[in-house]
């Protein structure tokens, strides 16, 4: 049981961090992009149509980042599951003296 508890303590925070880091990163990049594009639009470097296109493009990237975070969380679950099996198998073998 303590082995299981250790596995949960080790793995669950890392899954949470993957998702949170991804969200923080997406917000930071989006605000930097918007500031830059606003300046470019004001200077006439890009058109309003190009500005809208870039905003939609950033939204698409955010969607892809969300898919990445969700996929990585599933990969961590698989690793966690494999670690449980290894721990239990090891403990069981030790218990029967192998």
């Amino acid at each position, binding site marked *: 049981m303590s082995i299981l508890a250790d596995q949960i303590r080790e793995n669950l925070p890392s899954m949470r961090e993957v998702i949170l880091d991804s969200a923080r990163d997406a917000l930071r990049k989006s605000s930097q992009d918007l500031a830059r594009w606003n300046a470019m639009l004001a200077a006439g470097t890009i058109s309003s149509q190009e500005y809208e296109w870039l905003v939609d493009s950033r939204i698409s990237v955010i969607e892809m980042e969300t898919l990445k975070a969700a*996929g990585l969380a599933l990969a961590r679950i698989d690793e966690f599951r494999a670690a449980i099996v290894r721990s*239990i198998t090891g403990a069981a073998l030790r218990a029967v003296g192998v």
Partner: protein
Amino acid sequence: MKVLYKTILAILFGCAVASCAPSIAPFSQQAYRYATELKVESLSLMDRAENPFLDHLKHVEKLKIDLEKAYEFAKGRPRNEHSTKQWEILLDPDRNLIGGFLFRWESERQLSYPFIQQSQLLIADAFDTVIGLESGKIRFSD
């Protein structure tokens, strides 16, 4: 007796956990290669979008075919829905990543350098999410 009982219970639990199918496809070197190479090819071709589209038609067609290959490869792998959806968004001509960029280039014949530069940053980020997801998947030893 109590130890034996607990051991058997633990083994049964382990078997139950082990019998669950994996949640996501494992790492694929081929998928990783597709994503990294197509990132470079896409950004390189985007550099030419200041020039008339028809001058680069062959390169555009080749890139589209290569992108489709990567998408079909992703789609064909079991438990690979997240990566497949990423490729769909990337390739969709109605959206605003590489598929949409090539469509815009064709529609407008040539694009402005500042717009190309900003699009390259976004499309590079998009490819990085595909690469990041693939490289984060579980690797099985050969």
